[in-house]
């Protein structure tokens, strides 16, 4: 993949927002599910699906 191509895993808008939000945390800190849900504005079910896709990519 070149730098001009999008990764279908991470460049879905919602997952990009999730990753950007978590990356803004100080090193080593963690964020609760409910706060992340509040910041991204997703239903719990949708957020879980997005998080699992990111987790499975590890």
């Amino acid at each position, binding site marked *: 993949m070149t730098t001009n191509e999008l990764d279908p895993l991470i460049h*879905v808008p919602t997952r990009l*927002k999730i990753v950007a939000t978590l990356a*803004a945390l*100080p090193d080593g800190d*963690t964020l609760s599910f409910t706060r992340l849900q509040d910041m991204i504005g997703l*239903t719990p079910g949708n957020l879980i699906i997005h998080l699992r896709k990111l987790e499975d990519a590890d």
Partner: protein
Amino acid sequence: MSHTPDTTTAGNGGNFDPQQAAALLDQATVQARRRFSPGPPLLWVYRAAFVLVAFGGYWLSVRGHQDPYSAPSDGLVAVIFALVAINIGWSTWALKRAGAGVSGPAQRKRRAWIGVMLVAWVAAYAFTVPLYHASASHPVWALYPASAPLMIVGLAGAATSAARRDWPAAGTTLAIAIIAAVAGFGGPAGAWLIMGIGLSAVCLGAAAFKVWQQHRSVVRP
């Protein structure tokens, strides 16, 4: 709370192109930084106005030759207490909002830092009580509360911020300590004016830095 539609099956994000991805990444990062920030720029602007009114008001009450010294009016003292209460309330709210749902080493260090700063504030101002009981002379009595507490608090803040590698906070608190040290040379009246103008400038600088820090791009051109 608005909910965005389910995009789990969006594949490559529909019409999402790299430029839009970069813009969204920056936008989401700015929003997250803003919501995790315990010191929003507007709070620093308020602090700039607050210290200018508080220290400037004191300077207006003590400037010129006063014998005997007349204390600031009750009205000014009431205004200062109200401004202090607003600052404490706003700062507490901003801290709670930023730290909601966040846990980890940075949060623990921040809580420890706040504890150290509270002790430094109390210790620095508690020393005015024995000064009062010892019938300290007017220059001592005027100079100490104007500059010494913030020199102590500033140095304590700079040392503890440097220890946790929070360089912006270390720079801000060191600037406060330097201004307090310089203000000591301003005399019993001038110290209040130097503190008011100097601290206000530091707070405005901190507000400008916060704006830059929150809005700097994470995308390389």
